């Protein structure tokens, strides 16, 4: 369970949000909505342990976590605006590299299977430089599947994804939640996931 208590964020001297408290139970996805500049990304980065909230506490399974805490780093898969791909490396190399970085140790066959699942099999040997934005996003999806983390933190996950890609994401998220995983996603577009598994939080 992920809990946030009295979180606040500032940009300069202006307050983005304050007194924000919520909890995300296992098997639930929290969908964060809000207009641009309300601090969705700031909130997600704080939950991922990338930045320190201006005030408040974040707890994972009851334990207060500071930024970059080890238990957080073992629990979180973070997908930010950038797909973390190196242009010089191929799709397959990128995926293998990111999986290893997250502590997963997939075999080459696992990597290829993961790329096949996101329909990138034929592109696996192309350098990331020549891939379209949507295809780069799909490598990110394949990474989520490979690294097996309890808590997915997704910043605008459907951006640049086509209908097929969005469906793929929804299917993966469903399976993740059904398996007891948690997710926090900032998104404009609704996610086609089992409604009973969705909680929402508006920053407006």
């Amino acid at each position, binding site marked *: 369970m992920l809990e946030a208590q009295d979180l606040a964020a500032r940009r300069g001297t202006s307050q983005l949000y304050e007194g924000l408290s919520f909890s995300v139970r296992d098997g639930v996805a929290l969908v964060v909505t809000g207009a641009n500049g309300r601090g969705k990304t700031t909130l997600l980065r704080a939950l991922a*342990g*990338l930045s320190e909230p201006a005030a408040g506490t974040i707890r994972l399974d009851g334990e207060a976590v500071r*930024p970059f805490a080890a238990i957080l780093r073992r629990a979180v898969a973070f997908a930010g605006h950038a797909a973390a791909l*190196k242009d010089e490396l191929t799709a397959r190399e990128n995926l293998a590299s990111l999986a290893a*970085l*997250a*502590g997963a140790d997939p075999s080459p066959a696992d990597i290829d299977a993961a790329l096949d699942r996101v329909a990138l099999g034929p592109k696996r040997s192309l350098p990331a430089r020549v891939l379209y934005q949507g295809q780069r996003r799909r490598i990110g999806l394949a990474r989520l599947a490979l690294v097996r983390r309890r808590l997915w933190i997704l910043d605008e996950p459907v951006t640049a994804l086509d209908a097929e890609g969005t469906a793929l994401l929804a299917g993966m998220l469903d399976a993740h939640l059904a398996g007891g995983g948690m997710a926090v996603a900032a998104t404009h577009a609704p996610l086609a996931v089992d409604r009973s598994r969705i909680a929402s939080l508006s920053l407006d």
Partner: protein
Amino acid sequence: MGARDSDDHDGGGTDAFAWALRRDLAIALRTRSELAVQLLFYAIVVTLFPLATTPERNLLSTMGPGVLWVAALLAALLSLPRMFALDQADGSLEQMALSPWPLPAIVSGKIAAHWLVTGLPVVLLSPIAALQYGLDGTAIAVLVAGLALGTPVLSLIGAIGAALTLGVRGGGSLLALLVLPLYVPVLIFGAGAVDAVRGGLAVDANLSLLGAGLIVAALGAPFAAAAAVRIALD
């Protein structure tokens, strides 16, 4: 700030180091042009000094050690801004910071790759540059030994500066301001070693000090750079 409380007991330090080293080397080998730019810069700076002063042999061999070392410093500086900036731009740096591996080990791997790509070529090119300055065999050997010990320190200390100036206004020139004063001891001991051998003095003190500096920097700088990376992501 949580830089120390979470690290160090995770294990996987060697894996992390090897991962970062392999990855950065693979990327560098596919963008070879950068490698060439670095070396070319070193060669050109070394060529400029005689043009700015005199081709007179005695003066050149007096100036030589200092010039070759200053050029190595500047060449190291040239590539530093890219050490973390590209990874930050494409989001990989966040993933590194969120990895269960200890970040200082990942940073160490990146620093090692940086040295292999930018420092080692300068070490290897320096005998040719030294010939241009009329240094003799022993002096060249000491120069190369000094650079081999000293240029990794430049990458190590430089990594701290590179991480501190990530995404900061005027990053590149600010980086030079932060890092160059910290390079002073390396410069003094490195160039001093060549001066000593040219003056017929023992060089082991200079080289030992460079070696000690390398050990201290290798033990400390990755932690400081990792802390700075986390600060930059915050």
